[in-house]
């Protein structure tokens, strides 16, 4: 009888729990949530990411040792404010012959259509690939993070990968962020 009552109480307790999001924001030490991105049609972007063919790819398939992912939105004023500084991060990397083929940057426009992604790209002259996430599918897989959210992924030679740094907002500027990326991914 007591056992039955305890089980009943536990059952009632679980019914009282609030609904929780299925996914948590990506964290250091974890693998990336599973999602696909379309292989860019633009040949320069394709070459930048070291991809070939058509269809979809996973971030761990990018030809790099480290990939910096920014989850942003065209409508996020903080993402807009950070855009020149992240462009500068790209420039710092590309100008450094030791880093240029090792670290890549991509952006994912949460809830943004291809048109909105193009608008952001043109307005802020973004030199690295940006991807639309029109239906928030990737945003959901990433625990519906606030923006901007930065994820630094280290890709190993065997194709396995791990998140070495994850950060919500607070972009510190190109040099400090590059320093952080290098330390987190043991490239320093």
């Amino acid at each position: 009888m007591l056992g039955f009552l305890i089980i009943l109480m536990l059952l009632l307790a679980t019914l009282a729990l609030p609904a929780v999001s299925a996914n948590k924001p990506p964290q250091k030490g974890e693998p990336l949530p599973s999602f696909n991105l379309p292989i860019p049609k633009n040949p320069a972007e394709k070459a930048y990411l070291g991809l070939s063919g058509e269809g979809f790819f996973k971030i761990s398939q990018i030809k790099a040792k480290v990939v910096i992912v920014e989850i942003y939105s065209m409508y996020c004023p903080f993402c807009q404010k950070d855009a020149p500084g992240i462009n500068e991060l790209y420039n710092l990397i590309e100008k450094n012959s030791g880093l240029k083929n090792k670290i890549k940057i991509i952006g994912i426009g949460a809830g943004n259509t291809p048109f909105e992604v193009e608008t952001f790209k043109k307005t802020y002259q973004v030199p690295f690939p940006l991807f639309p996430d029109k239906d928030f599918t990737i945003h959901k897989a990433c625990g519906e993070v606030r923006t901007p959210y930065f994820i630094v992924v280290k890709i190993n030679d065997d194709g396995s990968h791990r998140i070495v740094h994850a950060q919500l907002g607070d972009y510190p500027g190109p040099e400090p962020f590059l320093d952080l990326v290098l330390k987190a991914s043991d490239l320093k």
Partner: protein
Amino acid sequence: MEERTGIITMKGNPLTLVGNEVKAGEGAPDFTVLDNNLSPVRLSSFRGKICILSSVPSLDTPVCDLETRKFNEEASRLGPDVVILTLSMDLPFAQKRWCAASGVDKVQTLSDHRDATFGISYGVLIKELRLLARAVFLVDQKGTLRYVQIVKELTNEPDYEAILDALKKLV
């Protein structure tokens, strides 16, 4: 003044709510808050509209909440009579910066900082912080409360789907 515990937590730590508990079916208490220009605004001035009263601890954050923005856009598209009033203890100057409202015409940010009349009238004033708990109240065109949701953990978002479901019944 009534105090209630066991309703909300912050990172699992219990907090106390001050003010009157309100329930669906009752008349929505009137209150006066300040708009972004420091002008007083009363709930009763929205009579005839469906009001979504959404209270939050703070709007002044350096990141964007796309969830909330999505909800604001969806809710405002549900009908011409829908108005979203987001209330917090932030000063009006800080509320102006809130990105989940920018470009969404039907969202108004209102400050309860001066007298906490909303917080006390709706029982969502947090005693320990003098901030508002995260909660959503739906008020119909006649001024009757039709839905109440107080979010248990302060750092979590509301259950937006449940709110949209309840809202669709009023529109």
